[in-house]
C-alpha cells in the first residue's frame, strides 16, 4: 500500500490516479482513498493506493510506502507508515530525520524534473515512475495511459512525460536495489471489471433505475454526482437543473415525481438538514423521491472533505411530526450502483422519500468492481390509478387517491390521466385528498402511512452478511464501515476468533427479518460506526432493548481495521 502526499494543487491526486489506472489494467485488485483540503489551493492532500491479488474492502490501515512531496506531508502521514516501511521523499523540499524503524530514500524528484528533464511539471510523473517500479507495474500500460492523457497536447508533451516516467523507473533500478519491493501477483479473474468511484457508480445506478430528472445544488462531496449526470442524463432524454438551494432542489424532485417521472437530488449533510421540511411534504403527500446524502464530517459546515457517518439520526428522524421514510446505505462502491436502483424502486413502490446514505469514503474512492450486469436490473413502478376505478379508486365519481388499503399503498394517478385529478397536500386529508382534521381520519391516515413502512421493511434488499454463522460474536454495521469489518472478521478468524458480521442495506425501517434473529442470537454485539454517539447502535438498542458494544470512531477518517480487531479480541475474552 502506498500513499502519495503533498500540497493540494501540486498534482498529487493525478499522480495517484495514473498509477491506479495502470494497476487496474495490469489485473491487480485495487482500492484508492483520497483526502482533499477544504481549501481550493494550498492545504494538505493525499491519495492512497492499495494493490492486491485478493479482493479489497478498505483502503487499509498501514502504509508500506509513503511518498512525501514536502515537510507537511511527512509530518501528517509518517505515523501511518508501518514498522519497516519505506519512506520516499523529495529531497529538494526537506530532509526527515533518520529512523531505524523504516527505510528511507531521498529521491530528487524536483531535481530530476528540473535539471535532467528541463520539465518542472514532470515531477509527478517521475513519482509515478518510482511507484510503478516499486510495484512492478508494466511500463507499457503507463506509457499508453500517458498517451491517452497527453496525446491531444502533441507528441512533444507525451515524449516529455514518458521521459519523466522512465527517469523515475530508472532511479529505483539504480538507487534502490533494482528489484520491485512490493510486487503483487495478478488477482484471480473476477470477470469483467470497471474502475469507478462510488459517486460514479451511484450516478450510473440512478440512470439504470430510470431517473430522468436530476435537481441539485453543488456541495462537497456530492457535486460530482450532479456533474456526472449533467454530462450524461440528457443523452437519454433526461435533464439536470441546478437549483438555487437545497430546499428548491428537494421541492423540484417532488414536483417532477408528482408528474410521474423518477427524480433525484444528491447533497451532503447541510443540504439534508435544509430538505427536512420537504421530505415531510413528500411523506404526507405520498410522493416517491430519492435523496442522496453523501455524508461528510459534521456538524454544521464541519470538515467538508472528511469522512463521517453522522447523518443517520437526521435521515431517520429529521422532520416534525411522524414522517415515514426509508433509509438505505450502500456498503461498497459496487453497492452504490445497486442501492441507487433499490432506492428508486422502494420510493416508487411505497410512495415516500428514500434517503440513500453514501459517505465520503465510498464517494471519493475508486475501486475495481465487477462490471454491473444490466440484465439483473429490475425496475418496480408505482401502483397506478386505473381509470376503470379498479383498486377501489373512486367515491361518487371522485378519485380516492389515498384510499385505505391493506398495505397502505394506494393507487396514484399522474396529471394527464382522466378522472385521476386530486390535490397533493401536506395537510392531513381524507381518502379523497381533501383536508380533514377529525381524530378518526388523522389516526387512520397515520396508520396507513406507517403500514407502508412495515411493508417496506419486509421488502428490504438483502443484507450484507459475512463470517461464521455459528459465531457468538456478532457485528452489526452499516455503509462503508462494512469494508473494514469484513477485513477485521478475516483477521479475527486467523486469530481463531469466530465472528459474524451483518450490514443491512436498509437502515430504516429496521428490517427485522434480517436483523432481529441476528441480534438475538449473538452473545455479544459490536456496532462499529464512524460517529460519536453510536447512531445506529442507538436505533438497535431502542428496537431490541439489548446492550451493544458501541465502537465509535470520530476523527474524520475511516475506522481502522485494527481497532475493530482489537474490539473483537476484547469481547472474545469474555465470550470465550
Amino acid at each position: 500500500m502506498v500513499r502519495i502526499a503533498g500540497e493540494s494543487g501540486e498534482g498529487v491526486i493525478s499522480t495517484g490516479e495514473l498509477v491506479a489506472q495502470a494497476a487496474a489494467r495490469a489485473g491487480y485488485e485495487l482500492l484508492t482513498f483520497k483526502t482533499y483540503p477544504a481549501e481550493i489551493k494550498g492545504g494538505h492532500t493525499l491519495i492512497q493506493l492499495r494493490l492486491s491479488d485478493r479482493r479489497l474492502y478498505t483502503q487499509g490501515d498501514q502504509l508500506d510506502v509513503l511518498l512525501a512531496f514536502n515537510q507537511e506531508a511527512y509530518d501528517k502521514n509518517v505515523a501511518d507508515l508501518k514498522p519497516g516501511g519505506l519512506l520516499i521523499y523529495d529531497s529538494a523540499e526537506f530532509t526527515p530525520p533518520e529512523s531505524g524503524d523504516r527505510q528511507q530514500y531521498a529521491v530528487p524528484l524536483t531535481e530530476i524534473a528540473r535539471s535532467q528533464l528541463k520539465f518542472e511539471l514532470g515531477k509527478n510523473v517521475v513519482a509515478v515512475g518510482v511507484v510503478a517500479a516499486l510495484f512492478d507495474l508494466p511500463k507499457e500500460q503507463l506509457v499508453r495511459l500517458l498517451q491517452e492523457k497527453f496525446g491531444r497536447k502533441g507528441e512533444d508533451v507525451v515524449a516529455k512525460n514518458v521521459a519523466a516516467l522512465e527517469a523515475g523507473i530508472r532511479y529505483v533500478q539504480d538507487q534502490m536495489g533494482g528489484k520491485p519491493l512490493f510486487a503483487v501477483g495478478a488477482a484471480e479473474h473476477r470477470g469483467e471489471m470497471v474502475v469507478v468511484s462510488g459517486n460514479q457508480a451511484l450516478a450510473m445506478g440512478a440512470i439504470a433505475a430510470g431517473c430522468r430528472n436530476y435537481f441539485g445544488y453543488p456541495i462537497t462531496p456530492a457535486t460530482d454526482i450532479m456533474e456526472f449526470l449533467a454530462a450524461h442524463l440528457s443523452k437519454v432524454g433526461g435533464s439536470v437543473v441546478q437549483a438555487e438551494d437545497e430546499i428548491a432542489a428537494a421541492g423540484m424532485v417532488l414536483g417532477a415525481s408528482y408528474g410521474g417521472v423518477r427524480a433525484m437530488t444528491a447533497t451532503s449533510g447541510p443540504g439534508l438538514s435544509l430538505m427536512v421540511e420537504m421530505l415531510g411534504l413528500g411523506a404526507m403527500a405520498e410522493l416517491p423521491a430519492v435523496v442522496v446524502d453523501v455524508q461528510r464530517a459534521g456538524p454544521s459546515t464541519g470538515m467538508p472533505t472528511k469522512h463521517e457517518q453522522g447523518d443517520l439520526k437526521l435521515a431517520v428522524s429529521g422532520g416534525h411530526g411522524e414522517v415515514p421514510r426509508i433509509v438505505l446505505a450502500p456498503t461498497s462502491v459496487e453497492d452504490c450502483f445497486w442501492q441507487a436502483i433499490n432506492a428508486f424502486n422502494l420510493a416508487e413502490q411505497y410512495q415516500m422519500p428514500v434517503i440513500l446514505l453514501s459517505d465520503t469514503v465510498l464517494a471519493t474512492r475508486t475501486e475495481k468492481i465487477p462490471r454491473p450486469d444490466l440484465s439483473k436490473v429490475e425496475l418496480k413502478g408505482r401502483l397506478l390509478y386505473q381509470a376503470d376505478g379498479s383498486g377501489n379508486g373512486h367515491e361518487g365519481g371522485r378519485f380516492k387517491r389515498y384510499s385505505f388499503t391493506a398495505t397502505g399503498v394506494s393507487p396514484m394517478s399522474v396529471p394527464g390521466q382522466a378522472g385521476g385529478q386530486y390535490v397533493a397536500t401536506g395537510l392531513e386529508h381524507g381518502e379523497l385528498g381533501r383536508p380533514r382534521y377529525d381524530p378518526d381520519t388523522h389516526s387512520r391516515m397515520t396508520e396507513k402511512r406507517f403500514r407502508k413502512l412495515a411493508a417496506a421493511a419486509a421488502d428490504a434488499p438483502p443484507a450484507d452478511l459475512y463470517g461464521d454463522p455459528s459465531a457468538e460474536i456478532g457485528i452489526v454495521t452499516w455503509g462503508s464501515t462494512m469494508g473494514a469489518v469484513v477485513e477485521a472478521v478475516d483477521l479475527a478468524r486467523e486469530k481463531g476468533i469466530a465472528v459474524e458480521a451483518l450490514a443491512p442495506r436498509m437502515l430504516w425501517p429496521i428490517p427485522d427479518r434480517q436483523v432481529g434473529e441476528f441480534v438475538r442470537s449473538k452473545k455479544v454485539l459490536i456496532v462499529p460506526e464512524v460517529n460519536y454517539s453510536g447512531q445506529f447502535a442507538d436505533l438497535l438498542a431502542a428496537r431490541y432493548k439489548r446492550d451493544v458494544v458501541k465502537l465509535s470512531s470520530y476523527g474524520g477518517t475511516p475506522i481502522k481495521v485494527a481497532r475493530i480487531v482489537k474490539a473483537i479480541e476484547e469481547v472474545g475474552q469474555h465470550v470465550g
Partner: protein
Amino acid sequence: MLDSTALIERTLEDYKSDEKPTWCPGCGDFGVLNAAYNAMREKGFDPKDVVVVSGIGCSSRIPFFVATYGFHGVHGRTMPIATGLRAARPELSVLVMGGDGDAFAIGGGHFLHAARRNLDVTYLIMDNSIYGLTKGQTSPTSRVGFTTKTTPHGSADRSVNPLLLALTAGATFVARGFSGQPKELADLIVQGIDHKGLSIIDVYSPCPTFNKVNTFKFYRELVEALPQDHDAADLGEAMLKARSEDPLYVGVFYREEAPSFEEGLEGQKAAGETDAHDLLEGLFDRFS
C-alpha cells in the same frame, strides 16, 4: 401546453370542484378564483392536463376548489415544485397561485430564480398585503407604517414592489390585476397562459378581515388601466409605470419573447438521444 382540447366546448362547472371555498365573506380571493375558472374555460383546458400549484395561506387553498390536478405544497415553495413539474412534464399547463407572504417573504429567493429561468408557468400572486391565514401580520407588500400585532409600532421595512422585482429578476411577462375587476383579470390570465415563459400577475385581492387599509374601496380609488399607448416592450417604461403609486396601474406592463426554461431543457436533450442501456454499457467500457 396542450391545445388539442380546444375542440370540446366546456362550461365553468367543468373547472369547479365540489369543495366549497372556506374564505371569509367578501374575501378578494373569490374574484380571483372566478377569473381563473373563466380563463381556463376560455382556453378550453382539459382539467386533466392542468395542474394548479400553491403554497400555504388562505389564498393557497385554491387547488382544492378547482377540478384540475393540484399541488398544495409547503409555505413559500411553489416555484420549486412548479419547476420540477415543468422539467418532468412540459406538455402540461401549470398555474401557480398563492399569497404575497408565500411569494415574497419565505418564497422570495425562489421567486427570483424562477424569473431568471423564465419558467413557463402563469403565477398569480393573490396579494392582500397581509398574512391572512395566520390572522393578520405584516407581509412584504404591506405599506411602511402598517400596524399589526407583530408590528404594533408600524412596519419599518420598505414594501416589496412585486412588479419591479419581477422585472428586475428577468420575468418576461409582468402584469397586475385586481380582484374587483374579474373580467379584466380573466383576460390577463389568458394572456399570461398564452405567453411563453414566466407570467407574473400580481393581483390585488383584499382581505377584509385583517387588512383595513388595502380594501376594495382603497383599490377602486387608485386602480387605473395602463394607458392605451403603454409600450409593453419597453423595460424602462414598465419599471417607471410599476413605480407609480397613484394611480396603481393594472394591465400588462411588460412582455418579452425569450427562450423559456423548457426550451433550454429541450436544448440539453437535443445533445443526443441514446438508449439508457447503450449509454451505460458505453460508460462501463470507458471505465474498464
